[in-house]
């Protein structure tokens, strides 16, 4: 039941109306997007909107944060909840600052500022890792999902450590009725249990067959909170694996949601999962071990919300990819897949999935796009932390594109793979890359955030699919 105090104030109702009008105007003017503006306008007019939104969701709020996998995990959890008969209230893809959450409110608000059927709804919000600590007290989440913590956009966050420290302070004040869904395999996430009263459900991978032969360079948690050095019985990606501290002896907790056997395929994975002892099989609809982690996180969050395991399994099998995350288009007889890569850990996982998806020396055709906007990270040095070298020795054709096409071309050159072409312009680069992909073959577009938005829009137009703002904002 909605308490009377949840009724929006006059000011909040006005802000919702003006925010919506701003979005409509932006779309009419043909300015793509129109997804940031409504939330920005409404949030500025009534800063209390975010708390009002959270209090209206009768079944509570779930936050999803971490460096990689926020959008996909949010998308999968929303799909599971829909299968469970609960209408999620969720923010448009990737719009994970305060304005994005307010935009979700605007989208679902009735004329009186209330949310339709609010008492039966769950808020499922992806939240940027650097702003979560600020929004957490106002969102008062029932479930808070923490996926991983890698280096990402250091030009914005300053240092990796400061993000983790912000979370620690925030969770020290979290209440007992909040459940943390934590990646047991990432020590910087698993160690969040220290100093909090919140409940905990962990997820992780227990299949030595998918571990890496050696540690990767892009590892950001080499040292325990006690100052000791971590050792690993298995590393799955970056610093994620079966860890233990060589000094204080703390070790990776046994995950309550655990992937016992993982079969990776070019377009998805089959995973045997134990959920609190019950054995089930997940069909994960996206390639790569990182997608398996996202599915485990979504399943653990749904489990924390009381969704039956059979519903979780069914919903995962039926879910498609999230916006710009392994979405596939048919263009000129070629399959074109869009892959977001915005930091070393994410890029490494993508490249590994590409190699696994092209066995027996089949060629990989790539359009590699590097932009340097605020949302991409203005500092492009991260490409040197990514292991582009894993593709060396594999037949690859690469077209480099984006604002920093020349920087990317140099990186590929230094990895021993000279680009077939360097074409900064998006449309011309797509033409070039399609020409180099044989009919019936697949082109993978690996792109930073704004480059992904550009490429997806151009590809969707060519394939006759809805444009970004039509899909993202409905």
């Amino acid at each position, binding site marked *: 039941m909605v308490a009377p105090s949840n009724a929006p104030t006059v000011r909040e109702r006005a802000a919702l109306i003006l925010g919506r009008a701003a979005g409509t105007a932006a779309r009419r003017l043909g300015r793509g997007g129109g997804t940031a503006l409504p939330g920005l306008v409404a949030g500025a007019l009534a800063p209390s909107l975010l708390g009002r939104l959270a209090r209206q969701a009768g079944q509570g709020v779930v936050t999803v944060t971490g460096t990689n996998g926020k959008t996909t995990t949010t998308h999968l959890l929303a799909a599971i909840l829909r299968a469970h008969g609960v209408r999620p209230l969720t923010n448009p893809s990737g719009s994970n600052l305060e304005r994005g959450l307010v935009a979700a409110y605007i989208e679902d608000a009735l004329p009186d500022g209330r949310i339709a059927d609010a008492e039966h709804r769950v808020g499922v919000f992806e939240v940027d890792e650097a702003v979560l600590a600020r929004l957490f007290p106002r969102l008062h989440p029932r479930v808070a999902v923490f996926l991983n913590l890698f280096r990402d956009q250091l030009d914005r966050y300053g240092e990796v450590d400061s993000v983790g420290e912000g979370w620690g302070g925030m969770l020290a004040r979290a209440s007992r009725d909040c459940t943390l869904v934590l990646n047991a395999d990432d020590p910087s996430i698993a160690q969040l249990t220290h100093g909090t009263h919140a409940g905990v459900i962990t997820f992780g991978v227990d299949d030595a067959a998918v571990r890496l032969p050696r540690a990767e360079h892009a590892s950001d948690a080499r040292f325990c909170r006690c100052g000791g050095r971590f050792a690993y019985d298995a590393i799955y990606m970056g610093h994620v694996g079966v860890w233990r501290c060589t000094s204080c002896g703390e070790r990776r907790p046994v995950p309550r949601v655990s992937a016992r056997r993982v079969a990776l395929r070019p377009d998805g994975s089959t995973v045997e999962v134990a959920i609190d002892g019950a054995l089930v099989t997940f069909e994960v609809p996206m390639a790569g071990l990182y997608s398996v982690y996202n599915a485990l996180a979504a399943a653990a969050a749904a489990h924390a919300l009381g969704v039956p395991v059979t519903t979780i399994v069914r919903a995962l099998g039926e879910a498609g990819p999230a916006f710009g995350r392994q979405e596939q288009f048919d263009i000129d007889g070629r399959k074109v897949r869009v892959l977001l890569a915005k930091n070393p850990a994410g890029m490494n996982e993508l490249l590994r999935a590409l190699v696994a998806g092209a066995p027996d020396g089949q060629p990989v055709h790539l359009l590699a796009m590097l932009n340097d906007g605020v949302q991409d990270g203005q500092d492009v040095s991260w490409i040197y932390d990514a292991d582009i070298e894993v593709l060396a020795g594999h037949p690859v054709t690469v077209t480099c594109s984006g604002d920093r096409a020349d920087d990317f071309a140099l*990186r590929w050159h230094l990895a021993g793979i000279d680009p077939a072409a360097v074409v900064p312009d998006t449309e011309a680069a797509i033409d070039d890359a399609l020409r180099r992909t044989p009919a019936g073959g697949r082109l993978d577009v690996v792109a930073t955030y704004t480059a992904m938005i550009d490429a997806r829009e151009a590809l969707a137009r060519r394939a006759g699919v809805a444009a970004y703002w039509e899909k993202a904002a409905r």
Partner: protein
Amino acid sequence: MTVGDASTPGRAIRVVTLYDDVMNVYADRGNLIALRARAAEHGVGVEVTAVSLGDPLPPDADLVLIGGGQDREQRRIADELAAHGPALRAWAGAGTAMLAVCGGFQLFGRWYRDASGTELPGAGVFDVTTLAPGPGAARCIGDILAAAEIAGVGEVVGFENHGGRTYLGPGAYPFARVEFGRGNNGEDGTEGAVYRNAVGTYLHGSLLPKNPALLDWLIAAALRHRYGESAPEATLTPRPAPYAERAHASASAVARRRSPKFEPVVK
């Protein structure tokens, strides 16, 4: 007389990387990747010794690399690095080439007072000191373009991201003069420090991949250290670096467009 690369088979430089498993926050391994690739083009072998916590220094080195780290990581290595200070200063004095970036540059100075007020000892290769300002002060973050004070190196481009403000002592010379960006402290227009063949700098980005003139200068200096000033093995034949030059031009244009033109602070 031009000595071709083919006539000097087997020449190599001894490279020491310091704490590269701890100090690598801003993609500093790109410097080693570029060094290996460029040295191969010049027909120069690269023998790398990775020195980390608890390891002794090898007897000698032609080129030393150290990258950046966060305060936590700097605290881990500072005492050990300072203990290597006398050896590193002797190497630098004897002409070993060095590249110390960001947090590594700070710890190659005399001392670094970090954000918590703790003073970390430095190796003292450069006569510089660094202060982390209080929590209210902005970090120096952005594209940077500077004119190197080393003959033939010219314009250097990169990205800087540091809280600490570094000040040159009377015995230090700047590596470069800031044209766009902030540099050592945002006040005096200096960027980094240079002592003989040792360079300290805030530029990552990564630095050596897209600054081929600096990279060649370091390789040449390392070869001179190994084989002697006038040895035929110490000669580098100029050769183009097309990918690096295009990336340099692109980063240079970005810095000119996006970063503030440096204006000295008038006190």
